[in-house]
């Protein structure tokens, strides 16, 4: 029998105090609408949206170790749920999010059962295939508006604030759900699968069941963000709903913040989106170069993400020796 290294509690959620700081930052974000700036509302709503998507990816990619390149599919499905409901005359955020949760859970289970049998890279590409396929499919389906897209009726006068708080609530839910899932038996099972799938199976953890569970919960997170985005944006079309950025950024955020932690995606989203926004403002054409440069430096010096630095004991020497492990 192979022994599964039992993860320490801290290793599964990240440092407790960091999580508390993240909650504090979330509380701070409650006051963004008080600035009465649509620009700030939109910018921070996007940051929250990316964070929620990043949490969705983090469950399957960070905790279970199955790297998905297609989580944007869930976001897109969520956004289209809002569009379909709006077309049917239902304009209610709770209904939008509710439908997105159900549809995404069902879709994730249906797709997950066959493709989660695939290992590593093959799983990754299968998910990418699903996302790419859905994009083109959506542009060919008339009842979804095809390439022309679909409008979603906006609710209320002060709607910008409403949608901001809706996205905030979704993100907070993702954050707290991740925290509790990570500490529960479910979380231990996810990590056990990531560390050694065969061993986990020997220990009586059914990999398929847990993998599909992680995948489906992550799908619901991305879907909820998508549903709020669709309603808030008032319009979606395939390139918006399944945008490449929505696929790459959440992964980048989870990596830079710290994969498999409860605060990593949020911290990563704040950092990466904030940096992008600032560069975008100050460097008309060069911003892409600086943005790329920052990511290169981050990966070269902090390949394990920011959470690693927080938990680091042993100073510079330990850091360098940890880095050296990755060299050939």
């Amino acid at each position, binding site marked *: 029998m192979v022994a599964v290294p039992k993860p320490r509690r801290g290793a599964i959620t990240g440092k407790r105090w960091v999580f508390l700081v993240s909650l504090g930052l979330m509380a701070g974000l409650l006051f963004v609408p008080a600035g009465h700036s649509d620009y700030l509302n939109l910018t921070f709503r996007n940051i929250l949206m990316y964070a929620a998507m990043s949490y969705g990816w983090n469950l399957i990619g960070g905790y279970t170790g199955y790297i998905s390149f297609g989580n944007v599919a869930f976001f897109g499905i969520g956004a289209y749920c809002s569009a379909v409901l709006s077309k049917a005359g239902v304009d209610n955020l709770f209904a939008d999010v509710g439908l997105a949760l159900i549809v995404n859970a069902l879709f994730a289970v249906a797709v997950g059962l066959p493709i989660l049998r695939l290992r590593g890279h093959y799983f990754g590409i299968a998910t990418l295939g699903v996302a790419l396929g859905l994009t083109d499919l959506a542009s060919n389906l008339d009842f979804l508006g095809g390439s022309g897209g679909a409008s979603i009726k906006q609710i209320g006068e002060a709607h910008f604030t409403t949608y901001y708080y809706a996205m905030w609530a979704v993100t907070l839910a993702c954050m707290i759900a991740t925290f509790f899932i990570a500490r529960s038996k479910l979380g231990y099972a996810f990590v056990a699968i990531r560390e050694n799938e065969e061993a986990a199976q020997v220990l009586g953890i059914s990999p398929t069941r847990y993998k599909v569970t992680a995948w489906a919960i992550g799908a619901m997170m991305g879907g909820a963000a998508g549903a709020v985005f669709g309603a808030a944006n008032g319009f979606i079309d395939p390139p918006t709903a399944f945008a490449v950025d929505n696929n790459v950024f959440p992964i980048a955020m989870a990596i830079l913040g710290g994969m498999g932690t409860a605060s990593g995606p949020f911290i990563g989203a*704040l950092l990466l989106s*904030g940096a992008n926004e600032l560069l975008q403002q100050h460097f008309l054409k060069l911003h892409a170069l600086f943005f790329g440069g920052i990511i290169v430096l981050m990966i070269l010096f902090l390949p394990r993400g920011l959470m690693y630095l927080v938990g680091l004991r042993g100073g510079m020497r330990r850091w360098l020796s940890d880095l050296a492990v990755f060299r050939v």
Partner: protein
Amino acid sequence: MIRTIRLFLAAALVFAAFGVPVTQARAAGDTIVFGSAVSLTGSLTKEGHLTQEGYDFWKDYTNAHGGLKVGAKTYKVDIKYYDDESKPNTAQTLAERLIDQDKVDFLLGPYGSGTAFTVAGVAERKKIPMVEGNGAAEKIFNQGYKYTFGVLSPAKKYLQRVLEMAVNQKPRPQTLAISASSDAFSLEVQDGAVTWAQQHGLKVVYANKYPDGATDVSSVISAIKAANPDIILNAGHLQDAILVNKGLKEQNVQAKIIGYSVGPDTPDFVGTLGKDSEDIVGGAQWSEAVGYRGIPGFYRTAKEYADAFDKQFHHRPDYHDAESTAACLAFQYAIQKAGSLDREKVRDALASLSITTFFGLIKFDNRGLNVYKPMVVNQIQNGKLVTVFPAEIANAKLRYPIPVWGKR
């Protein structure tokens, strides 16, 4: 050391997240500030660059001529740009930023229908007038928006004009094949052409769409070849036009007229295809040949505009440049008519504007779309873009039917 790095990163985090709001205020006082998100990186870089040239040309002209006289006061003009990376969502955020943080007075449109659509939504909500010259999809104007104005002819007209010209040729062409890229603009172009063809006795033998950003269209070409049409059109962008044109030659597909919605008017088309671009026609918003005589206040003819433009940017303006400058002109005359910088008054002045410029008539229907200015048809002859339709302004005769591949 580690402690320092941690502190630094924490500071960077706070700065990155909350430094966003810290920004400069608008250049107030005697300057009118326009804001625009244009594509300076990404897939629409080239077109975004042309848009910026068109805007800057007007700005430099106006400032060099003492500025813009509004009522009793004269203002300098300035344009604040951001790079939307060719992405609609980014353009939307930047529009919010231009309005809320940079406090611009008015918006000039981005390049492309996708980006113009999201920015139009922002302009509407914030009640900031926007004039755009580079988003032709009618989708933008069918939302009931009151603050967005487009100086250009709508997408549906792009290839209709080519068909209008075609049916007057002898022998009269009988059949049409039209492919389209799967994006909102191109599908509207295709729809407009197909509808027109059916109403005017042209048989549509092939009409289909291929994925947006396709890298290979050879099977689309084969299907068109099998349908053996008299007219071959493609609704798409520059890349599509180049791919389709190469494909048609490679499979030796002959037709009496070959035309593209966007492409032939960009100098890159001839540069990329060389002599294979010969005799290709394209629907265009404007050409140097148009004979409008504009009202005073700016270059009054297309020729004067083009010559001055060439002096500043060292290339002839294409219609993307011209329509961008025209967007600025709409603002210029509307602001002067309103006699004020008040956004509501300028909006009303735009809505009732009716002026002739070097670009043609600028007048908006109740959706904010300039349906009054006709399109022209250009053809590439001896490596040069000439205007062949409508006859009143044509500076060359249409070559019809076009010679077979290899005989050009």
